[in-house]
């Protein structure tokens, strides 16, 4: 420790006194600002109660529960094929990605393995739902900052991805395509080629977003250095997905624990960014969209032939046991802890959704930021309300 001179002490006291004088002159009154429960900037029905001092947030508390639909209790009275209909609607933008871990957990208990073609189509649709999810995020981030154009681009180009999902599964939004032991149907004729075309549209969209937002000075000054999550804090709060990778944590379940999906056969890269601010989270998601397109192209080219359904009994009864399967959803780690007692329905289904952990950092993160930055930070955290409340 260095010795402090008298001169330094005096200058410190003088500066404190000057600050105090300014603070007395510009004294502010505390106020409580309620955002939500229904607000376009909160991606659904998140309510945020922020206590403000002037324009700075002293304390912000997210109030969840406006979208609680009781999934865990409902799945105790639904049969296994019925549950995929429900879990589609947890994270409604990446619907297919929600089905896969549940089906994998049930398959693990039943000791059934899906044939290779089914696994590849699952991975393909998984990545397509990720692309559809991320396109909306990339466009929506502009809206949080007051730029409305990107979201129109996003809705325009997202339709091309949704068209492909609809052609293959019959559902634009909620495919309900996964079955225990395989898939409902095979891919239609000519689907692979049209998917490749639509992926080119997505790549063009990514370039457009990069031109429109990423290089923009306003965008950079509103996101760089704002909402910084250090690596250790991100780990303490259990962040996952692009939020963790934006804080420099090199962790991706697709690479580190690829249960039952075709990721080990593909050539791709996990992107991380060391900064941990809003900009880095946006940047990581942009690169992930491109990486997903790369994966989809490889999956289209190397699609194996064969059956799409393993041999499973007509009435599905899962043997007694417990299984936890998690996959890397568009939002982060999505896991199902399935407890079965050998009946037609699960005994207990615990859902670990990514958004709940991702948004639980909000009180820590929003302390001391300015009011307009609340929206930017929450937008860059990117949560889906159904995924928080379930």
């Amino acid at each position: 420790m260095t010795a402090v001179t008298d001169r330094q002490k005096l200058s410190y006291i003088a500066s404190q006194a000057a600050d105090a004088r300014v603070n007395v002159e510009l004294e502010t009154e505390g106020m409580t600002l309620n955002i939500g429960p229904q607000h376009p900037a909160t991606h659904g029905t998140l309510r945020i109660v922020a206590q403000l001092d002037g324009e700075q947030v002293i304390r912000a508390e997210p109030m969840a529960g406006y979208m609680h639909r009781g999934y865990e209790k409902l799945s105790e009275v639904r049969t296994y094929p019925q549950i995929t209909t429900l879990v589609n609607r947890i994270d409604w933008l990446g619907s297919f990605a929600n089905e896969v871990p549940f089906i994998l957990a049930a398959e693990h208990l039943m000791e059934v393995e899906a044939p290779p073609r089914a696994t590849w189509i699952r991975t393909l649709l998984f990545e397509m739902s990720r692309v559809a999810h991320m396109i909306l995020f990339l466009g929506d981030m502009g809206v949080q900052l007051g730029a409305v154009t990107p979201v129109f681009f996003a809705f325009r180009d997202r339709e091309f991805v949704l068209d492909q999902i609809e052609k293959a599964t019959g559902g634009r939004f909620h495919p309900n395509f996964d079955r225990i032991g395989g898939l409902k149907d095979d891919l239609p004729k000519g689907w692979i080629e049209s998917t490749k075309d639509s992926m080119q549209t997505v790549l063009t969209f990514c370039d457009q977003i990069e031109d429109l937002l990423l290089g923009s000075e306003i965008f950079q000054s509103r996101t760089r250095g704002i909402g910084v999550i250090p690596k250790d804090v991100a780990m303490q709060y259990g962040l996952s997905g692009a939020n963790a990778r934006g804080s420099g944590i090199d962790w991706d379940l697709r690479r580190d624990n690829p249960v039952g999906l075709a990721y080990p056969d593909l050539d791709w890269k996990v992107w991380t960014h060391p900064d941990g601010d809003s900009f880095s989270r946006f940047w990581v998601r942009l690169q992930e969209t491109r990486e997903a397109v790369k994966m989809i192209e490889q999956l289209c080219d190397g699609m194996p032939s064969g059956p799409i359904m393993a041999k499973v009994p007509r009435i599905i009864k899962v043997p007694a046991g417990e299984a936890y399967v998690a996959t890397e959803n568009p939002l982060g780690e999505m896991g199902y802890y399935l407890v079965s007692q050998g009946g037609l329905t699960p005994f207990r289904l615990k859902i670990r959704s990514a958004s709940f952990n991702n948004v639980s950092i909000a009180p820590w993160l929003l302390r001391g930021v300015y009011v307009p930055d609340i929206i930017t930070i929450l937008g860059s955290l990117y949560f889906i309300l159904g995924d928080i409340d379930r």
Partner: protein
Amino acid sequence: MGLGLVESGKMPKPLTKLLNTARSYSVWMYQWGLACCAIEMASAMGSPRYDIMRLGVIPLPASPRQSDLLVVSGTVTDKMAPAIRRLWEQMPDPKYVISMGSCANCGGPYWDSYSVTKGVDQIIPVDVYVPGCPPRPEALLEGVVLLQERIKHENPAERWTGEPIVVQ
């Protein structure tokens, strides 16, 4: 236009027709996006493929006090229901409600859930029900067209002074 004329119910027929046509093509839509349907509603508003504005529906008003139409899209939970009722009460008459999606219509896949309101029509009167889980954006456009038909054939005096019309 004299509002007293409308309220007394003595509007001449041509004037009524003019008023109704004007009203049906300038519907300010307050969007209450709750769940999956909100994304399809946003597609209908934001996507150039659907473009709800070509029907004369103007989305994103600043406040419910400026809007004519409330679109409830998505799962209404018991915790959310009082807020919907409160904002519906803030809307000026004549006001219309479109219930979009199975959840808002009747509870949908959560028909036996402990926390979901089984239908938004339990708390506010609904004019048009759009079925589907979620309905396609085209289905919402169809619902808007049906609502515009209803506005065109309406007696403003009845609507503005009496109880809201309840759809059977």
